[in-house]
């Protein structure tokens, strides 16, 4: 199987506990009051839904899969998932325990995987990093942003993939746009012939056709943006339902709108110019089929 190996992070062990919850979790007390010795946990809302566990229910926690013993804990809160693209495809569940309880259950002793440190201000961050890194052997401090970059490689791959698909789609769309505009302008050959016979200059005709093509392209791209917004909403609705996340899978941003419209207008103008030049070079009578 594909190993999701993350060196040293024992937090993953919790996944074992929670994935075994459907088998091991026994709701032994659904009453709202609980014995004083029983600790509380916060459970992934998706796990709660899938396992039929509700707030106030008591579950058993163990580090041994399939273990029917273990410590009891009461579900006191449900956790929603962050809209993190590196996590959405993973179907693992999450939970939060009191630190000492988790350490005890998994036999970790007085150990943790990492500390999160909140500095008093961004200007203090560098000093703090240096102080922590110089304090002792064996561990290193990073700014959270650096960690985010390192752990978002999955998302970066997906982004590059989507961008590649976008490039292919743009090439196809550009060919379509050029083709259709050439068709439309070719349809006007008799009009162009009549104008030439009236004495209208080739330059005027070309400018007029180019302007018309540009306007068609602009109007088309406005309609396309509207269509894109609708499709984006449908795509987001679908995938948010599939992955049970609030992550937006597709966004129509001002940058993409401007890029799409500019590219479309540019292609329209180029197509108009090429087609118009072809038409004005043909003798008018020939355009009329004589």
């Amino acid at each position, binding site marked *: 199987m*594909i190993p999701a190996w993350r060196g040293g992070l024992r937090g993953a062990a919790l996944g074992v506990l929670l*994935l075994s919850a459907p088998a091991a979790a026994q709701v032994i007390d659904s009453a709202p009051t609980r014995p004083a010795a029983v600790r509380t946990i916060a459970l992934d809302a998706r796990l709660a839904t899938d396992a039929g566990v509700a707030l106030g229910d008591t579950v058993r926690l163990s580090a041994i*899969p399939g273990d029917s013993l273990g410590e009891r804990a009461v579900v006191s809160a449900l956790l929603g998932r962050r809209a993190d693209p590196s996590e959405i*495809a993973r179907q693992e569940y999450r939970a939060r325990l009191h630190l000492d309880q988790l350490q005890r259950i998994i036999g970790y002793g007085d150990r943790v995987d990492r500390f999160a440190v909140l500095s008093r201000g961004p200007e203090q961050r560098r000093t703090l990093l240096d102080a922590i890194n110089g304090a002792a052997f064996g561990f290193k401090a990073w700014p959270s942003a650096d960690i985010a970059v390192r752990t978002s490689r999955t998302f970066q791959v997906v982004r590059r993939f989507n961008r*590649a698909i976008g490039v292919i789609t743009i090439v196809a769309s550009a060919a379509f746009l050029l083709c259709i505009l050439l068709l439309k302008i070719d*349809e006007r050959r008799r009009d162009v012939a009549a104008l030439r016979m009236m004495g209208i200059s080739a330059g005027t005709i070309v400018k007029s056709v180019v302007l018309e093509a540009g306007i068609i392209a602009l109007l088309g791209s406005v309609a396309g943006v509207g269509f894109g917004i609708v499709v984006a909403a449908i795509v987001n609705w679908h*995938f948010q339902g599939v992955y049970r996340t609030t992550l937006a899978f597709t966004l129509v941003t001002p940058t993409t709108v401007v890029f799409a419209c500019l590219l479309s207008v540019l292609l329209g103008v180029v197509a108009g110019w090429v087609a118009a030049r072809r038409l004005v070079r043909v003798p008018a009578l020939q355009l009329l089929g004589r």
Partner: protein
Amino acid sequence: MPVRLAILALVRHKARTLLALLGIAVSAALLLDMVMLASGMKENFQGFLMLRGYQLRVAPKGTLPFDSDATIDSTASLVAAIRRLPGVSAVSPVLGAQSQTTSTRDSTITAFTLGIFPDVQGDYELVRGSDLTDSTSLVANERWLSETGRAIGDTVTLAVGYDPQLRTVLGQRRFVVRGVARFFYIAATQPTIGMTLPVLQAMGGSGRRDRSSLLMVKAADSADIEAVRSAIQRVSPRISAISLEGATEAVEQRLGYFKQLALVLGSISLAVGVLLVTTLITIGVNERAGEIAVLRAIGVARTSIVGQVVMEGIVLTGIGALSGILIGLVTAQWLERILSDFPGLPATFRFFVFQPRDAGIALALLAAAGMLAGIYPAWRAASLPIAGTLRREAVA
């Protein structure tokens, strides 16, 4: 005659036909890639799991193999119990851990380490050198060798269970590099080594004694896989027995985004292709309204005219689609290179696997699209009143 007339009609306007072919070809390429992505992943993954013929995996309860740090206890007795089950021909226990060694450049290299039994292992193939022969042997992948600066025959010291704060290890031993291996299920960029299972268990201290991360089970050729899986599941409540289908389903969930994206993009490219061909044919037919009226006047049946126009659509999409198949194979390589950068992806895994069936599906879809695209404009043109059209075309 209809094919010839269709080709002649298309050749009359070379520029627009070439552009349409380009658009259709690129759409066809995208469609092929998406079909390959949607269908290839599953087949590739199943083939990938079956590389050494192990149809079943046994993991700690509720987990997928190597999905967490959880391990299976009492491995020896569990292996013996599973081996005794009818229909089981081989069991390969595997333990995963991290090991550290010092490179020739004096840096510490962390490697993913597999403990296996070489006579039943299904995790790697030997590329050169020799396999594990004794408790001091190890095999490594190219990445480990290049990062550590080692070669076959070198002696190295490996440590397991390294505590970076206290600078202590649970176990440390000297090994001789015997061979170079290609690990099927590990990314080629991950330094990886293999040693015998009892050695790794011993080095891991009490926490690793008689434990494994995963058991790979091979069923006899005549065995009912699902029956064997169920029998294994009943051996212990602390394990999950996973069949090929179960594993595929689990991974498909993880990679389901791409399958769905493939379907969405494939549908869009097909729709856009239909739209273009419809537009092209509609305008072409409108231009030839007079010709079509003449054909009707001299007695050519409406169905013949529709057939000829539909044939134009099919010829256009057919030629575009064939070019698109070739372009699609090239773009698939490009997309494969992008996706192969996924962290932790095994070296042997492929997202895009070409099967002639996929090309057939893409071609058939496009041919159907071409046909549909031509029907409506053709029928409209063939239904225009002959006399009125002739009069209008004569005036024009």
